[in-house]
């Protein structure tokens, strides 16, 4: 099965592991991710401003490119996913925004949010299926107690993201079970790590990431997994917890379980 794929710029630099293991695992599961040819940076935090239009055009171009290929668009980075999903929602449901963006784009046929954007985790859950994933696992990560860290961007706003219940999600826990490990249930899994505030007020980032790390350690997790490069950076660099658990991309564990990690 073929999907359009939007890696995003962090995955080409700091977070190359997130990208590499995702591609290898997808191939192993019979899924071909076709990277969009001329994708641009989604703009990250800047494009979340509601009144901005220019910074969201990169997302609209990516969405239009996938529409032209007639494929669903797979994302991986939590921030890119959030930005693309919100931009897509605005193109479909906010007539004023849609009109202005289409005026910029000057396409033959206006883009109206037709592309379906799915996160790599949704690809595993809804296309592959966690049951099939379980069957494809060669090296189950038996006995590993893993804390799924959702962060703030993956699930919210719930009405737009529509991935899972934002206050009581289970998609990453189900993923952890599928690769043979044991999920740890903990409260701060969907709290913000404070990453966005790191440049403005580092103390906030330290406080928030410490609370996340402390809670995971307190619940006897051995490691945290995430889909967000910024969370990974912030939890690794800024957490002041006594116990510093390793933080990994979920795709790395997936590749390990599927036996494609060399």
């Amino acid at each position, binding site marked *: 099965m073929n999907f359009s794929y939007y890696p995003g710029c962090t995955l080409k630099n700091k977070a190359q592991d997130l990208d590499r293991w995702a591609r290898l695992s997808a191939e192993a599961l019979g899924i071909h991710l076709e990277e969009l040819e001329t994708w641009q940076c989604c703009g990250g935090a800047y494009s979340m401003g509601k009144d901005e239009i220019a910074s969201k055009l990169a997302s609209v171009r990516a969405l239009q490119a996938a529409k032209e290929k007639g494929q669903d668009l797979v994302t991986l980075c939590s921030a890119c996913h959030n930005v693309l999903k919100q931009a897509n929602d605005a193109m479909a449901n906010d007539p004023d925004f849609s009109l202005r963006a289409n005026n910029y784009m000057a396409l033959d046929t206006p883009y109206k949010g037709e592309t379906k954007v799915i996160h790599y985790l949704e690809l595993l859950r809804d296309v592959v299926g966690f049951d099939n994933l379980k069957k494809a696992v060669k090296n189950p990560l038996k006995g590993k107690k893993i804390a799924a860290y959702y962060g703030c961007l993956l699930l919210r*706003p*719930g*009405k737009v993201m529509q991935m899972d*219940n*934002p*206050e*009581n999600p289970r998609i990453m826990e189900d993923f952890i079970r599928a690769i043979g490990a044991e999920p740890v*249930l*903990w*409260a*701060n899994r969907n*709290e913000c790590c404070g990453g966005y505030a790191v440049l403005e007020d580092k103390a906030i980032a330290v406080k928030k990431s410490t*609370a996340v790390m402390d*809670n995971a350690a*307190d*619940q*006897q997790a051995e490691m945290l997994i995430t889909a967000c490069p910024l969370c990974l950076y912030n939890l690794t660099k800024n957490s002041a917890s006594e116990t510093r658990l390793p933080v990994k991309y979920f795709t790395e564990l997936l590749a390990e379980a599927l036996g494609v990690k060399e």
Partner: protein
Amino acid sequence: MQRIGVFVCWCGSNIAATVDVAAVSEALGHEPGVVFSTNYQYMCSEAGQNIIKNAIRDYQLTGIVVCSCSPRMHEATFRKTAASAGLNSYMVEIANIREQCSWIHKDKAQATEKAIILGRAAIAKVHLNAPLTAGESPVTKRALVIGGGIAGIQTALDIADAGFEVDIVEKQPTIGGKMTQIDKTFPTLDCAACILTPKMVDCAQNDKINIFAYSEVKEVKGFVGNFHVKINKKARYVDATKCTGCGECTEKCPMKKIPNEFNLGLDNRHAIYIPFAQAVPKVATIDPNACNMLKNGKCGLCAKVCSAGAIDYKQKDEIVEREYGAIVVATGYNPIKLDDYDEYAYSLSKDVVSSLEFERITNAAGPTGGTLLRPSDGKHPHTLVFVQCVGSRCSAEGKGKSYCSKICCMYTAKHAMLCREKYPDTEVYVFYIDVRSPGKNYDEFYRRAVEEYGVHYIKGQVGKVVPRSDGKLLVQGSDLLANEQVHIEADMVVLAAAIEPDKSARPLATMLTASMDTNDFFTEAHAKLRPVESPTAGIFLSGACQGPKDIPDTVAQAGAAASKVIGLLAKDKLTCNPCTAHSDEMMCNGCSSCEKVCPYGAISYVDKEFRMPNRTTAIRRVAVVNEAVCQGCGACTVACPSGAMDLKGFSNSQIMAEVDAICKM
């Protein structure tokens, strides 16, 4: 040609502020057949009605049009007015220029134009009106109460007290409802069981009251005064006439790990069970999903130990058919599920409980015998945090309820106060948005919790509850008055969950053709003036099925609903609606289309001899409407392919005349 009078009402400023009433009465005065047209401030007042009566006499009116509020509101009023002046009631038409015009428009010129058009349509209809005479139908002198909580119990007792028969249908194995689970009641702190269980016993002992417990209403047919209801008595697998409620079976049953609904799953019951010691009827029930004997035929222990021989594994559901004159809905409420509110860690920690669970934990008949112990480790909690408005006054992301659940402020004050009274070593915090305590002695009660019992009330909401491995619950909230974040290490967190109507209410409303609001609360006929009646005749509302209510309010409404029922059952005959269907037998071809759609079973067929051309005769099958049963819904007139079926007072020609008048601009 009719002589028509037009009466335009201002409804104070309700109509007059948006509609130029003088222009409307002036314009309609020029319509054909209109011999008198006027406007007045309050047409429904005595002075207004006198204007109508005098005009009927002075101008020899044969029909009148009142341009006013919805016919739901005052059609009956103006029909009486006409009748008292010697005009047939059914020569009155209402043009609704309030709900359907002034209230929904802003532009005065456009609203005035629309009011004139609506008036014209009513005039066109009145031209074709004919005097109608209402018949009478008998009243079955028995009431049905659906739901056996405090609302249903009080309604049933009051109706029975007036000498009428009442049936209570309750889906649980016992009557009593939510109040049986509550420990103490605000604002007087008397014990719920002490004031409720005597009423339950009264119901059982009253020979006018018949309790169908563990039963559900399956089908409702008929109309006010004459309802036919099918009740499904679910199989208990125990013969209720033999069971003595001794409890021998429940002790011996080997399946003893079934979550106990009565204690909200905080402890277990057996597969055969009696919900609680004071259950009415006190009869054992076998849970068919848990019983080994019913599932795979292995066990049969309860039958062996039952000295009364009451166990009957072959018992089947039984349908009982009954007739009623009136139906009272008392289906009550439930707390919402807390799955969507996991910021409070409800699914992560056993020590985060709902307020109803907290009732069970503090109840002497509950799983801890009334000692406040944490569900996780059975230890005494020292710090408790109560969170109000969990799901109430919340429409964020569509997960909550937009309304205030009304009872939570008071029961939370009660919980907090009782905690401090019984366990002075506890610290108790309450997070609130507003404290709403209007009610007799309610605010005094809440103030006592703060001032005498030292409960810490914090204005603000909790953002996160983080359970720690040492058993503490880290509560993070905001104190809006101090403008600071609050962190509390709590031992227990109690969530005041929003309440919602019982899930059975929606299908029941469909069966009763009773209307509901968007939250599935039953709608009353008038928000202020008819609070216990449904807009559907013969259906009455009692308790929280109509909106969130505490016990005092529920009992008051239950009594009010009972008095309305008594008023209905006291009548021997009800005046029928004369706007019934009738079939033109010359046009009817006997196809049965009308019979199939009639919800009241009012249509039957007769073979009738007709004279045909050339002096021959033929026998034809034609439809006949039983006017005593027909409710005038009009379904048959739409279904009739040959146009033979018509409705008196709403004939096809009258409706077409209205449409023509609207279109003739």
